[in-house]
C-alpha cells in the first residue's frame, strides 16, 4: 500500500511538472517549471519527477529565448546527480539520463560530468517498427531540433517505420506513444506526406489532451515544427 501510495504521488508530481512545462512552452507565467520541494519527502518526490520527465523538464529553457531560472537548473542538476543509471539499467534509462546531462551542459556550463560518451544503440538495430516506435516515444525528450545523437540518427534512417508506429499508436488509442512518435516525426526527413502529421498532432491532443504528458509532447512537436513558442 505504501509503495502504491508513493507511486501515485510520484505520478501526480510528474503530471504537475509536465503541466508546468506545457504552460511555460506556451509562454505562460509559470516561471518555475520545477516545483520547489517542501520538506525532505516532497523534495525527493520533486527530484524523482524531474528524473521521470527527463530532459523535457528543462525544455522551455532549451527552446525559448529567455534563459531558465537558475533555481530550476539547480534542481534539475540535483536530479541528474541523484539518479545515475545503474550498470544494468535499460538502454532507455541510460539514454534518458544522457539526454539530461546534454541539456544540463547547455544550460549550466559549470556542469562537467564524467564520461559523456553516448550509450550505444545496439538494442534498436534491426528492431521491428512497433518496438522501435515504442522505444523512441519513451525517448521523446531526445527529439530536439538541432540536437543530434545516435538515437536521432537511427530514427532518421527509419522515417516510414516511425510513421507506421504513429499510425499504430493512434489506432490503439495510446496517446502518449502517438504524441512521442509524432514529435520525432516532426524532425525526421523522408516522412510520407500522406501521414498528415499536423492534423494528426491536433487529433492526438484532442483525444489525449487531458494527460499533461501527451500535451507536453504535442507542444514540443509544434515548437519543433515552427521553431517558436506555441
Amino acid at each position, binding site marked *: 500500500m505504501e509503495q502504491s501510495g508513493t507511486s501515485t504521488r510520484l505520478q501526480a508530481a510528474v503530471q504537475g511538472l509536465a503541466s508546468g512545462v506545457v504552460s511555460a512552452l506556451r509562454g505562460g507565467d509559470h516561471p518555475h517549471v520545477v516545483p520547489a520541494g517542501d520538506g525532505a519527502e516532497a523534495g525527493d518526490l520533486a527530484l524523482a519527477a524531474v528524473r521521470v520527465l527527463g530532459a523535457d523538464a528543462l525544455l522551455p529553457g532549451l527552446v525559448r529565448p529567455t534563459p531558465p531560472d537558475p533555481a530550476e537548473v539547480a534542481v534539475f542538476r540535483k536530479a541528474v546527480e541523484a539518479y545515475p543509471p545503474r550498470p544494468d539499467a535499460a538502454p532507455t534509462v541510460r539514454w534518458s539520463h544522457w539526454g539530461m546531462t546534454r541539456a544540463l551542459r547547455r544550460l549550466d556550463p559549470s556542469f562537467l560530468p564524467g564520461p559523456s560518451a553516448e550509450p550505444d544503440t545496439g538494442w534498436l538495430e534491426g528492431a521491428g*517498427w*512497433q518496438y522501435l516506435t515504442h522505444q523512441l516515444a519513451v525517448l521523446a525528450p531526445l527529439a530536439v531540433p538541432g540536437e543530434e545523437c545516435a538515437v536521432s540518427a537511427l530514427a532518421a534512417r527509419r522515417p516510414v517505420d516511425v510513421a507506421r508506429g504513429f*499510425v499504430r499508436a493512434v489506432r490503439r488509442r495510446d496517446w502518449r506513444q502517438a504524441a512521442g512518435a509524432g514529435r520525432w516525426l516532426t524532425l525526421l526527413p523522408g516522412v*510520407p506526406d500522406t501521414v*498528415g502529421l499536423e492534423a*494528426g498532432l491536433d487529433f492526438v491532443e484532442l483525444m489525449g489532451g487531458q494527460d499533461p504528458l501527451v500535451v507536453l509532447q504535442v507542444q514540443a512537436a509544434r515548437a519543433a515544427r515552427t521553431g517558436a513558442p506555441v
Partner: protein
Amino acid sequence: MTAPDGVTDVRRTAETALAWVDAHRAGFTLGEDALAVDGEADRSWKPLGELAQVCVTVSRHTERSDPLHARARALLDFAWRETEEGDLFLRLHRLEPFATYPLEVYATLASAGYRHRAFEEAAAVVARTRGWRLTEQDPTRRLGVLRAEERCGIRRPSPAPEPPLTWLGGLPEPWTFERDAGYALTHVVFHLTDWGDDAAGLPPGLAAYLADWLPPWIDTCLEARKWDLSAELLAVAAVVARPAGDLPPFDAWQVLRAAQRPAGELPLEDRDPPPEEPGAPALPADDEWYFLHHYHSTLMAAFAAVLTCERPAAPPAGTGARHRHGGRGAPR
C-alpha cells in the same frame, strides 16, 4: 526453387480453408427465399457470390493439376448449379430489374466462363437506361458495378464514367483508418485489380500509399482479432507487394493461422481465444449462425493465401517498397 517455409504455411491455410468451405457447401445453397421479394440477399446471394469470386481467383492462380484448383472448379460448378445454370438470374431480374446484385454475382461466374445469354440480354436492356446509370450507390459499390458491367460486355456511352472518389483514392491520413474504411479500401483494390489478378490495375500512387500504411493497419486489425478484415488486408498486401517482389508478411500470417480453427474455418472476429485443448466442448459447427459467422473470413483467408502464394518466392535484390524505405513491414 523451393518455396520458403512461410509460403508452405500460407498455402496450407488456403487448403484447409477451402476444405472447410467444401465441407459446408450446404450453407451456400440459395434456398427457397432466394427469389422472395423480401428475401435476405445477405444470407443467400451474398455468400454464393463470395464463394464464386474466391473460387474464380483460386482457379486462376493454381495449376490444373493442383488439387486446390480442382476443388475450386468443383465449387464453381456447384455455385452455377445453385443458380440453375443461370436461370435464377433471369428470374430475379424479372422481379427486380434495377437491382444490381444479380449482375454483380452473375459477372463473377461469367468471368469463369459460366454464361447465360438471355440474362445478359435482359441486363443490357436495363443498363441502357439513364435510370440504371444514375442509381445512387456508395463509391466502392459503384466501382464494383462498373466492373461487373465490363465483365458482362455492357458498355456505357462515352465518355467513360470517371472513377468514383473513394476513401482510398483520396489518400486519407492513415491514422483515420477504421473498420468501415478498411472494408471499403480492400474492395476498391479488389475491383481495380480484378480481384488481385492484375496488380498493374493499381495506380502507382495508390500502391505506394498502401505499401506505406498496410503494416500498421494489418497489425492493429490482427491485434483486435478482426480476422476477416485482416485477411482482406493481407490479400491487398499480396497484390501490392507482387510487382516489387517483396516477401509476404509471414509474421502476420502466423497470427491469422493461429486463429484458424482445426477444421479450417476462421471466425469473423473473436474476443476469446480459440479452444486449445482437444477435449474442449465442441462448437456448434453445423449451426446456421456458425456458418454465417465463419464463411466470409474463411473465404477471405483462402483468397488472400492464394494471392500470397502467387508471388515470387524470393524478391529481386534491391527492389521493392520494403527496401526503398529500409523498413520492416512485417507486423509482429
